[in-house]
């Protein structure tokens, strides 16, 4: 069946689709038209902005990798669990989505802070405190971004169906071979969507990072924190927050466009 004869979309779906694009894109255009271009370049290329951007990229990528390492096995487990257990897991996993990130940051502080057993254990083991370090940024980002990865990967694992996996198993392929060569490639579109959501959420993360990691330039001040600081700090103001936002956006779009995996079409 040739792909150039795919069933087309009903015409009247186009209006709501465009409205949807409008809702997402028009506010940005409004933002861009109101940006103060005179100071934009200066704001966006200040050493502090660039250092925040670089930190954001590094931690965003690290958090995404961590989420893939933890989240893909979790999604596989959920997709293969009995309905009830899967349902429970899904409910647990949706929780950090609902939690206002700042409260998530408080929760992370409670968990890893110096007054907590885990924090003291880590301290006694490696002599480090997690909070207020770059590692804390990665943990905070992973905490808020992981659910996105897990839920979208699980969805597409369920859609992929078990027929191919069974066929592979009857050929003698072990679980690992089935997982890596059949299951995951078949779930690739959901994996890609999940990674995009995860990365985007991670580098946009602000509330949990602010509390758990703090706002120290070069160590924990990511772009969103720099934006927030510019925004809330008296005087410096909104213009430079907008400038930094545009810089962050442009970077994120470029990263996502560059990443080859970004094309779920690759599998079709």
């Amino acid at each position, binding site marked *: 069946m040739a792909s150039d004869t795919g069933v087309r979309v009903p015409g009247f779906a186009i209006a709501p689709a465009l409205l949807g694009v409008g809702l997402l894109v028009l506010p940005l255009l409004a933002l861009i038209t109101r940006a103060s271009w005179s100071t934009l370049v200066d704001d966006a290329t200040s050493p502090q902005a660039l250092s925040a951007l670089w930190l954001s990229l590094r931690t965003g990528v690290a958090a995404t990798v961590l989420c893939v390492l933890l989240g893909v096995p979790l999604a596989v487990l959920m997709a293969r669990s009995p309905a009830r257990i899967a349902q429970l897991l899904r409910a647990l996993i949706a929780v950090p989505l609902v939690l206002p990130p700042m409260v998530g940051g408080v929760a992370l502080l409670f968990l890893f802070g110096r007054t907590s057993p885990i924090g003291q254990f880590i301290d006694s083991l490696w002599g480090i405190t997690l909070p207020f370090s770059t590692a804390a940024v990665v943990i905070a980002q992973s905490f808020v971004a992981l659910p996105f990865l897990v839920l979208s990967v699980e969805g597409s694992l369920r859609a992929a169906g078990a027929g191919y996996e069974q066929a592979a198993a*009857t050929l*003698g392929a072990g679980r690992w071979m*089935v997982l890596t060569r059949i299951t995951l490639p078949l779930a690739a579109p959901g994996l890609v969507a999940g990674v995009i959501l995860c990365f985007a959420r991670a580098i946009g993360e602000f509330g949990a990072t602010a509390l758990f990691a703090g706002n120290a330039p070069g160590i924990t001040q990511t772009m969103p924190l720099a934006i927030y600081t510019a925004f809330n700090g008296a005087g410096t103001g909104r213009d430079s927050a907008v400038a930094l936002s545009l810089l962050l956006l442009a970077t994120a779009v470029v990263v996502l466009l560059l990443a080859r995996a970004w094309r779920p079409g690759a599998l079709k």
Partner: protein
Amino acid sequence: MTLEVALRVPRTGFDVDVEFQVPAGSTLAMMGPSGSGKSTIVHAIAGIQKIAAGRIELSGTVLADAKQHRPPHLREVGLLGQDPHLFPHQDALKNIAFGARAGGLDKAAAKAAAAEWIARLGLEEIATHRPEALSGGQRQRIALARALAAAPKILLIDEPFASLDVEAAMDMRALVREELERTGTSAIVVSHSAADALALADDLLVLERGRIIAQGAVQQVFAEPANRFVRAVAATLPAQHPMSIQEEQP
């Protein structure tokens, strides 16, 4: 490798409830009307269908009974299902190589084996087509090669020639026969074609609504048809077929 099967699987309206053996190195043909339970039985032997009662044993190793269920990849049983389930993200060559690799070859050997299979099938032209760009008969042949490449101890093939033209079906029958003999593999062949049973099998087992209604050496079963169905199947054997002459000269 003698396969001993006794199983019960509940289905809508009836239970599949059978008991039979496949002696080492021999091939059993399985026939029966659509929906009589043939696929259910091979799925149970391959391990993708649980059984409610009974026991499936391969040379003394219990593959399944009412309590245990050995996973498919630990059974040394290979299945080519009625739906071949070619992997949609791999081309023809890679599909066969997957079988070879799952059967224990290393990467390079599997690749070489796959290329050899493609050549034997005469399908070099479409070796790099993905399943969606293969014809029905090509799909079926690639899936057969994939199952053979996995070199199981017992081979289960469920209607393996259904989408093939007369010549291709004859070629494939010959190929399967050759491979089974060369490797001494036992097999079960599910088929609607009396010609398949005659060409490939030692014994024949006929099912109806989950029960065995005839069992024995192939020719013998056809020679003494146990019921209308067996008679109709035997009648498709040329030179014995009154209806086809009617149809030919209406």
